[in-house]
């Protein structure tokens, strides 16, 4: 209950900011929590209360959203801002294993000095410490970096709070391809159209999106730069052009074309040149996704009579069937370590769930109990899976931890949200 109150307080706090991205921001709601929550206190930074954007509420919201941390109340005075000011026994008594402290100070040149330290209350030592000189506009980004540092030091995994997500919003007859921060803030429209847009796919360096647009009355694959908005046709052959997936080195994409008949998988260079056929079956082959080492792809095929997931080496050769439970397994993606697959499984008629399969053991785990799940993709640290689902007839985004324990819902202020893909780690991480 206390947790819920605090969460509500955080959300209200966030909602109170009249930041530029009020447009179509996503609101996040958390359900469930990790098995072992790490108790941590985030002490409000010295000097942040007078800023347009305070740092620590963003840090706390990030950590809380992961479900892996228990937030220890840090509102009581006195509040330490330097390691020398920390009363370790006191924070131990409040239950905090770790404490984040710091300050934000204006510089003569208009920038801000953000200083942050993470201290271990048991060992009474500093676990991490950083200083950043940033323009005020980067306060949120800096808060995400700090949350990433805390997450990494305390869990041993890479933090993904500085990453972005891409998705489609449909409002009435209008479709928008949008990109937002992983916490739903800063939504920006990349492309708006009166015809459907589907299947956004991030380039591995996070600078471009490939997607399928129906603006010319048929599916055509485009690649668009996020910084310049420059875009080009990647594949516009006779018939359908769809399901783009980048190779891990960004040099080529797998796409699905029907120029030779059935939907089949082709490779094409990232500049649209050099198309060559990869799969060769009498059935449907679609939804390719590269393995992290780039040596193979997984894809959906109905060659065995029902849609199932297969794996095929890029060097050519036969495809190996990977899924055997149920008669509809589609939309596969590899985990970042290449050891497991996430996909959508249909259960009893028309109920679609996110499923995770270990590639070595074949063991399958259904992670969700919602009914209309689609388009799952891993966070770049492999700990969360982002997907689309439906609540009350409306499309929303949701995320589930790869152990199935933590669930988040991301709801837009209006419209149907769908076709999400979690972006890569940012370049400076």
């Amino acid at each position, binding site marked *: 209950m206390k947790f819920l109150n605090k969460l509500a307080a955080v959300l209200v706090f966030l909602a109170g900011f009249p930041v530029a991205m009020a447009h179509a921001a996503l609101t996040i709601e958390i359900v469930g929590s990790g098995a072992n929550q790490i108790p941590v206190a985030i002490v409000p930074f010295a000097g942040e209360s007078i800023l347009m954007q305070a740092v620590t509420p963003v840090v706390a919201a990030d950590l809380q959203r992961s479900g892996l941390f228990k937030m220890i109340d840090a509102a009581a005075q006195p509040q330490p801002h330097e390691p020398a000011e920390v009363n370790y026994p006191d924070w131990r008594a409040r239950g905090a294993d770790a404490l984040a402290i710091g300050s934000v100070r204006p510089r003569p040149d208009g920038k801000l000095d953000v200083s942050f330290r993470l201290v271990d209350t048991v060992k009474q030592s500093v676990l991490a410490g950083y200083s950043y000189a940033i323009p005020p506009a980067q306060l949120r980004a800096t808060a995400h970096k700090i949350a990433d540092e805390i997450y990494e030091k305390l869990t041993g995994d890479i933090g993904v709070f500085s990453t972005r997500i891409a998705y489609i919003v449909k409002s009435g007859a209008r479709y928008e391809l949008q990109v937002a921060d992983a916490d739903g803030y800063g939504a920006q429209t990349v492309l708006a*159209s009166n015809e459907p847009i589907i299947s956004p796919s991030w380039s591995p360096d996070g600078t471009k999106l490939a997607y399928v647009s129906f*603006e010319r009355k048929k599916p055509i694959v485009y690649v*668009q730069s996020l910084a310049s908005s*420059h875009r080009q046709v990647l594949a516009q052959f*006779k018939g359908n052009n769809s399901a783009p997936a980048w190779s891990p080195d960004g040099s080529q994409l797998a796409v699905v074309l029907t120029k030779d008949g059935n939907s089949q998988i082709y490779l094409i260079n990232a500049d*649209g040149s050099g198309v060559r056929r990869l799969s060769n079956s009498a059935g449907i082959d679609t939804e390719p996704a590269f393995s992290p080492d780039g040596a193979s792809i997984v894809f959906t095929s109905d060659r065995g009579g029902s849609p199932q997931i297969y794996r095929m080496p890029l060097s050519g050769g036969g495809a190996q069937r990977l899924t055997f439970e149920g008669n509809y397994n589609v939309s596969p993606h590899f985990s970042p370590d290449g050891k497991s697959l996430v996909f959508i499984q249909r259960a009893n008629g028309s109920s679609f769930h996110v499923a995770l399969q270990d590639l070595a053991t074949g063991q399958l785990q259904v992670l969700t109990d919602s009914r209309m799940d689609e388009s799952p993709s891993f966070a770049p640290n492999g700990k969360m899976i982002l997907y689309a689902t439906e609540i009350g007839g409306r499309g929303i985004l949701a995320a589930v931890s790869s152990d199935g324990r933590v669930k988040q819902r991301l709801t837009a202020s209006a419209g149907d949200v769908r076709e999400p893909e979690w972006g890569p780690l940012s370049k400076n991480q």
Partner: protein
Amino acid sequence: MKRILLSTLLVSLLAACASQETKEQPKAAVENRGAAQPSAGAEAQPAGQQGVAANPLKDPNNILSKRSVYFDFDKYDVKDEYKPLVEAHSRYLTSHKDAKITVQGNTDERGSREYNIALGNRRADSVKKVMGAMGVTDSQIETISFGEEKPRAACHDESCWKENRRSDIVYQGE
């Protein structure tokens, strides 16, 4: 100068694709890469090829005015009840070698969007195969798929789903 150039580009771009816009600086002209074959059908639309009088394709009493072939769940074979319709269009196309059609496949909303694009394509392709067997040349038909993206009926039960599991025959210029 630069500004004038940009706004000229902007105006021509807006004119070129009125239904579509990129948000920041929509200066990206859409280029066709060398490898891509220009798609037959969908883009260039010479209007009014047929005479004004008695266009059999528009005559409600002519079977050629009927354009939709419906499919069962997860199926893509052309059912017997739709064969006369497909055969009538085949005869029209073999006697009008300059006529071109797009067969647009559709699915209901259930399942993966990309898989549904592929399933819709099979539904379009089934119609094309029947036509091919009747002597219609390949170059007269382009099959495309909208998958589940452009449902004709909007509700979320079988009454709408059966309407959306469909291939439509669209003549060039329509």
